[in-house]
């Protein structure tokens, strides 16, 4: 299992701040994204956004990053702090 987190606009659009997901061998961030996109129309739309960012274990990464059981994967829009 992995923990998946959603922040800001994504959290609101998906009405979800976190969920648990089962992972199999050799999965990447891209696989997680595709899997989540199948949860419905809003999920498909949110998960296909050009600006979507992903972090694994609290580090921003790309869509080929491998994901293993116990990881924390977060999806969020571009940051706007400061």
């Amino acid at each position, binding site marked *: 299992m992995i923990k998946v*987190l959603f*922040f*800001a*606009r994504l*959290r*609101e659009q998906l009405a979800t701040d976190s969920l648990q997901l089962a992972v199999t061998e050799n999965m990447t961030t891209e696989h997680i994204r595709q899997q989540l996109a199948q949860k419905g129309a809003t999920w498909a739309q949110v998960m296909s956004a050009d*600006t979507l960012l992903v*972090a694994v274990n*609290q*580090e*921003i990464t790309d869509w080929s990053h491998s994901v293993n059981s116990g990881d924390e994967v*977060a999806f*969020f*829009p*571009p*940051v*706007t*702090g*400061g």
Partner: protein
Amino acid sequence: MIFVQSEDFVVADEYQRLASDNQDGAIVTFVGKVRDFNEGLGIQGLSLEHYPGMTEKVLNDIEAQARQHWPLNKVTIIHRFGDLSLGEQIVFIGVTSPHRKAAFAACEFLIDFLKTRAPFWKKERTNAGSKWLDAKASDDDHAQQWSEKLPK
């Protein structure tokens, strides 16, 4: 020192903490506040969301990068989250160095990278409702420009 907190900070106290060392000739601070930056929409304030844990990690990493590039003594980064009203303080960056050019450059570097790397998101509360702010391309540009002007 890194602080991610909902409480306000007191610039006088932060300055005091930074200014205690006689080796430092230069102290540069930056404060960012909630400002009335929209076109007469009657902004009431901001709600700031963050990713607890990752935020501190990114800010520590940015501080470590700055220390690689410039001779810094003290560094303080404070960023608030939660509901902030118009005019309230959002972020404090303070650095000290023997050299003023290093202090200025590092302070600006820290806020540029905080803006484009640290997982904070602003939602604006106005009389007409609330709305997530979009990231600004200019902020990305400012962060990118450092690759050309960093000291070797």
